């Protein structure tokens, strides 16, 4: 028997290859745990996780390749697997572990045959052996290995059983020359697989009717929709409920970090850049981390149960009319929390064209960052009617969803012609989800998000801070007069003096913002937004909210801080009662309606643009998304402003 001797010169790189839904990633998680990271394959958007795992005296680097059915397929995933096996732009593998579902050996052996034609040592790891045994199959792994010409080990990724045997097999991989059928002759390959199975596998697989009954319910046109609605309601209720507390903690934590770091740095530009730009900007993104973690944890659990594949069919009936596949529903639901995890969740859409169409329209769905703006503007529009305010709030969500669906239709008729690929999915066996797998997947996704926040988003917030901090504007006479007055009043009334100082600071900040590059941009672009009813302050608010929508209310709060016709007003009241330079209400009804439509439809989130670029692998899609949504928002807002002005 030919043994491949362990070679100390090799890089100990092991690839995990196999069909989808065979437990490959669960095995990877069991082998590497947290000692892993996600990286893109060179020249592609396909990701693979790499991690290390040690046996008695050998440390190995495992790479979890994407699940594929065949190495011969023309799709990107198969191409990436071929590239990894050939060692193109990555380490040549020392060995390959093919993970195969023991209950479905015939189909899984097709890729095993394809791999054996390459002269790479391999180990066949049989997963789901326990299910096979329960279903009536017995597998003689030793005999199987002898017939196949390589080690065959039974593994149980969830418990870790069989991992020692796997490492042992990798210590001394063998690759005997056995006659193999041509990879292009499907009949010969299946005959070869049948012969192997007949020689080493006993019994017949019993397929239960439980799955049939559950599938009938989960994919039923009405019952399936009800089940789907209940599960998704619980999912999002859980996300919003559980995320609120950790989000507050992150918010407070960054506040303390800002105060602490601010105390260490001397007043000046460096202080402002670190505290307001870096810490403040990163905080604005990282605050969504709890939502992202909970979302991915729950989606991972759901996926593991086997339900998501059924739900995709339920939604496919509706989404296909708009050129989208059923799997798009997961990103769309996630988008109601935040577009960033939604775009990341679009990875569950298998076809690249369908995935890009999903990513392009996902930001139309109303995310949580839009809520403060909706609250402000709906409150202004329907101040005396909570019922109408509620309806308007709901209408914002409907408008966003309709814009997404009809844009998807437009995308599939123009830049990405054609319909979505008809659904043909493998429906995995129902099983209890693995908390460990869900946890490790969540850590992985969170780390990808944080890396993005630490690079692209950090760069964006520093640029935005710089635009709003420069050039430096000298405080006006009003500011100086307020401070002088505060100093005088301090001798008799400390509270009043404090309020005057705060007012002076706010006014100085407003003047700084108005005179800054960001403010100048606002004034420069005001003619563009003028037809929508916006003055320069609203234009600055809209412009700055292109960094992140949630800053709109705080920007307006700063810009209207000096408008103090009425004493003791809250922030919202000040914005509501703010005046334009001409003395007219800044937020008239037509302007508020136009602004509301603009915020529903516009792409005002630079981090989302960065994530779109990352997930599509091209700035073109990100810029198309930004341009299209902005133009659509402008046109819709203009129509709204014109109609409401005419009616009133």
């Amino acid at each position, binding site marked *: 028997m030919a043994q491949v001797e362990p070679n100390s010169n090799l890089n100990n790189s092991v690839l995990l290859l196999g069909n989808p839904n065979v437990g490959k990633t669960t095995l990877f998680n069991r082998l590497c745990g947290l000692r892993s990271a996600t990286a893109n394959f060179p020249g592609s958007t396909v990701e693979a996780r790499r991690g290390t795992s040690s046996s008695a005296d050998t440390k190995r680097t495992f790479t979890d390749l994407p699940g594929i059915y065949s190495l011969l397929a023309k799709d990107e995933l198969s191409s990436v697997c071929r590239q990894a096996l050939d060692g193109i732009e990555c380490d040549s593998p020392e060995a390959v572990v093919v993970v195969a579902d023991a209950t479905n050996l015939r189909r899984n052996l097709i890729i095993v045959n394809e791999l054996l034609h390459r002269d790479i040592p391999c180990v066949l790891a049989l997963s789901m052996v326990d299910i096979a045994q329960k279903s009536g199959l017995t597998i003689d792994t030793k005999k199987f290995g002898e017939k196949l010409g390589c080690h065959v080990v039974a593994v149980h990724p969830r418990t870790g059983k069989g991992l020692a045997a796997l490492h042992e097999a990798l210590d001394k991989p063998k690759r005997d020359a056995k006659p193999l059928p041509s990879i292009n002759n499907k009949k010969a390959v299946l005959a070869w697989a049948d012969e192997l199975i007949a020689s080493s596998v006993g019994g017949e697989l019993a397929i239960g009717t439980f799955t049939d009954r559950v599938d009938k319910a989960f994919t039923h046109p009405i019952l399936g929709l009800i089940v789907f609605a209940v599960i998704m309601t619980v999912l999002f209720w859980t996300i919003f409920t559980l995320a609120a507390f950790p989000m507050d903690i992150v918010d407070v934590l960054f506040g303390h970090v800002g105060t602490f770091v601010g105390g260490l740095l001397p007043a000046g530009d460096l202080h402002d850049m670190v505290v307001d730009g870096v810490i403040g900007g990163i905080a604005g993104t990282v605050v969504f981390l709890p939502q992202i973690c909970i979302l991915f944890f729950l989606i991972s659990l759901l996926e593991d149960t086997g339900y998501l*594949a059924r739900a995709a069919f339920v939604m496919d009936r509706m989404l296909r009319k708009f050129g989208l596949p059923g799997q798009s529903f997961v990103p769309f639901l996630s988008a109601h929390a935040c577009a960033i995890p939604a775009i990341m969740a679009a990875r569950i859409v298998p076809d690249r064209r369908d995935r890009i169409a999903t990513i392009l329209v996902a930001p139309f769905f109303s995310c949580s960052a839009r809520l403060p703006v909706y609250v402000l503007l709906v409150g202004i529009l329907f101040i005396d009617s909570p019922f109408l305010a509620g309806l308007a709030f709901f209408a914002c969500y409907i408008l966003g969803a309709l814009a997404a669906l009809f844009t998807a239709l437009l995308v599939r008729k123009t830049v990405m012609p054609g319909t979505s690929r008809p659904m043909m999915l493998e429906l995995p*066996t129902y099983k209890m989800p693995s908390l460990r797998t869900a946890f490790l997947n969540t850590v992985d996704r969170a780390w990808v998000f944080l890396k993005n926040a630490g690079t692209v988003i950090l760069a964006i917030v520093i640029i935005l801070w710089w635009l709003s901090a420069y050039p430096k504007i000298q405080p006006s006479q009003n500011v100086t007069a307020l401070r002088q007055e505060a100093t005088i009043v301090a001798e008799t009334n400390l509270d009043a003096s404090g309020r005057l100082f705060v007012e002076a600071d706010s006014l100085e900040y407003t003047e700084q913002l108005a005179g800054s590059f960001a403010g100048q941009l606002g004034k420069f672009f005001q003619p563009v937004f003028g037809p929508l009813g916006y003055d320069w302050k609203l234009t600055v608010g809209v412009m700055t909210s292109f960094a992140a929508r949630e800053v709109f209310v705080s920007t307006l709060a700063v810009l209207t801080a000096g408008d103090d016709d009425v004493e003791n007003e809250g922030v919202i009241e000040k914005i509501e009662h703010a005046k334009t330079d001409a003395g007219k209400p800044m937020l008239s009804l037509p302007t508020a309606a136009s602004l509301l439509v603009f915020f529903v439809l516009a792409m005002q989130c630079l981090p989302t643009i960065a994530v779109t670029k990352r997930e599509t692998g091209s700035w073109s899609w990100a810029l198309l998304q930004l341009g299209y949504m902005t133009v659509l928002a402008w046109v819709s807002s203009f129509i709204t402003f014109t109609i409401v002005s005419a009616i009133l």
Partner: protein
Amino acid sequence: MTLTSPTIEAECIPLTQLEERERAVVHVTDLNDDEREALSAMGLHEDASFELCQQGQPCIIQVEATRLGLSSEITSRIMVRRGSVCN
């Protein structure tokens, strides 16, 4: 497309006409290359034997141990022969 004898051709019916729990063999498909390749990789190639678990949208079939969900756009273009025939 596969050329077959008129007798076999006459026995063929669209997958959509099969009854639940009936076994059949894929005879010929009118799918494009990508669709045929994807289905074949999942085990549903020409001459593959399968059992129909659920008719409708989705149509669910069992090919050996693999359970596949197929939309009607796919099933309407697959012709099958009733009965279980060895591949």
